[in-house]
C-alpha cells in the first residue's frame, strides 16, 4: 500500500493528466472538457507560482547552516546574503511591490547587480574566443567565416565599412541558418515526442526521483 501511494499513484496521475489533456485538444468533449482543461492549466500555473519559493528555501537553509557552523571565510557572506533577503522582503511588505519606493529599491539593487552579472558573459567570451576561435579545418574555417560576415553585416560595421556584407549576412541568416535550425527543430521535435511518450507511459521516472 505504501509503495502504491508513494510511487505508483504519482506515475498514474501524470499519465492520466497528460493523456486527458491531449484528448481534450483533439476531440470535442463539450463544455465539460473545456472547463476541465482550463482548470488543470490554472492549477499548474498556481503550483508554478508556489514552486518559485523552492529554490529560495534551499538557498536560505544552506546559508543558515553556514552561519550556525561559523564556516571560516564564508559565514559573514552568508550573513550578508540573509540580511539582504530580509531587507528586500521587509521593504516589499511595508511599501508594497507596486509602490514607487519598492521600485527604487529594485533599481538600486537587483537591477544593476543582475544586469551587470548577466553582461559579464561577454567579458569572459573575449579570452575564450582568443583561445578557441582558431582555424583548424574546413568546419572551423566556415564557422569563423560565417561569424565574421554576420557580425559585420548585423552590426553598424557593415553599413559603415563593407556594405555588401549586409546582403550576405541577410542571406546567411535567412538561408544557411534556416537550413541548420530547421533540421535541429525537426530532430528536437522527434526527441521531445519520444521523451513525452516515455513520460506518459511511465517509462521515464527520473522527474519523480524514482529511477528507471
Amino acid at each position: 500500500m505504501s509503495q502504491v501511494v508513494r510511487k505508483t499513484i504519482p506515475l498514474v496521475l501524470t499519465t492520466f493528466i497528460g493523456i486527458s489533456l491531449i484528448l481534450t485538444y483533439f476531440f470535442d468533449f463539450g463544455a465539460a472538457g473545456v472547463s476541465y482543461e482550463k482548470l488543470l492549466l490554472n492549477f499548474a500555473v498556481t503550483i508554478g507560482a508556489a514552486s518559485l519559493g523552492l529554490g529560495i528555501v534551499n538557498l536560505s537553509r544552506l546559508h543558515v547552516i553556514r552561519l550556525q557552523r561559523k564556516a571560516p571565510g564564508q559565514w559573514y557572506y552568508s550573513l550578508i546574503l540573509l540580511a539582504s533577503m530580509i531587507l528586500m522582503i521587509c521593504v516589499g511588505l511595508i511599501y508594497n511591490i507596486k509602490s514607487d519606493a519598492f521600485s527604487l529599491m529594485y533599481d538600486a539593487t537587483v537591477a544593476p547587480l543582475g544586469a551587470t552579472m548577466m553582461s559579464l558573459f561577454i567579458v569572459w567570451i573575449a579570452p575564450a574566443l582568443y583561445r578557441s576561435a582558431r582555424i583548424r579545418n574546413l568546419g572551423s574555417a566556415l564557422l569563423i567565416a560565417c561569424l565574421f560576415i554576420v557580425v559585420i553585416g548585423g552590426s553598424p560595421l557593415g553599413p559603415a565599412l563593407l556594405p555588401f556584407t549586409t546582403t550576405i549576412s541577410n542571406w546567411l541568416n535567412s538561408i544557411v541558418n534556416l537550413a541548420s535550425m530547421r533540421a535541429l527543430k525537426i530532430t528536437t521535435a522527434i526527441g521531445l515526442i519520444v521523451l513525452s511518450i516515455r513520460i506518459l507511459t511511465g517509462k521515464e521516472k527520473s522527474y519523480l526521483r524514482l529511477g528507471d
Partner: protein
Amino acid sequence: MVSNKESYLKKHTTTIIIVVLYLFYVYPILFPFSPPIVIGEKAQSFYDLVESLPDEPTVLLTYDYGAVSYPYFQGFQEAFMKHIYRKDGNVILVAFGAAGPMMYKMMQKTFAPVWDQKTYGEDYVFLGFIPGGETGVASFMADIRQTIMIDFEGNPIDTLQIMENVNMATDFDLVVNCETSTTIGDGFVRQVASAYGVKLALVGPGGPTWEPYYPEQIQGNLYPLPGAPAEYEKLLGAPGNASSQIGLLFTGSLFYLVIIICGNVIPRIGKGSENGNTD
C-alpha cells in the same frame, strides 16, 4: 628562449584582453559617434506587419526579460506602442518573466510623456506576472479571466474597458513576445500560433533559432538586437534607446573581430608555435 616580456604577456593574456575590451567600450561613450543605420529586411517586415493590422487593433505585448536586456527592449517597446497608438489601438501588457513587473515600473517613468496622454484601463493595461512558462502562456491564451482575476494595480479584470471583448488568444490582432531566453519563444509558437492561428511576432536573441517558423508560423522575427530595433525606431521616426547604442555596438563588434584575428595570427607568429596551438 622566451623573453621576460613575452612570458609576462602570456601570463596576463586574459587581463590584457579584458582591459582592452573595457577601453573599446569606453571610447564611444567619451567620444560619441553615430554610424549610419541601414533599414534591414527584418525591421522592414515587422513595420509592414504592424501597418497591415486593422484600425484600432488590440495587441498583446509581453515582458519576458530582465534589467540586463531593458536598454534595447525598452526602446523597441516604446516605439511599437507609439506605432499602435498611431492606429488608435490598445496595448495589453503582461509578464511571463518574474522581472516583468519591475520592467513595467521602469517603463512607467520613461514612457510617462506618452502614457500621461492615455488612460490606464482604456488605452493600455498591465495584467501582471503569470508564472509557469509555457503552461502559463497556454492558460492565459485559453482563458484570461480564469488565469488572472485582477491586474497589477489591483483592478478586477471585468472593470477594465480595454478587456471588455478580450478573453483569449483569438481576441488579439497581434501578439508580440519580447524575451531574452530562447525556449519560451518556441512555447509561444506552439501555444499561440499553432494552437489558435493568431499573428505572432518574436523579438529577442533567439531570432536565429526562430527563423524556421518565419514567415508561415510567425509573421515577425526581429533580430539581431539591438540593430533591428534601432532600424525599426528609424522607420517610425522615433529614435530611442536602441539607436543611442549604435556607436558602442560599432566598437564592441569590432573588438571581437580583432580578438579572433589576433587569436589566429599571434600564436602563428610566435616562436615555437605549432599549428597555432600555443597560448
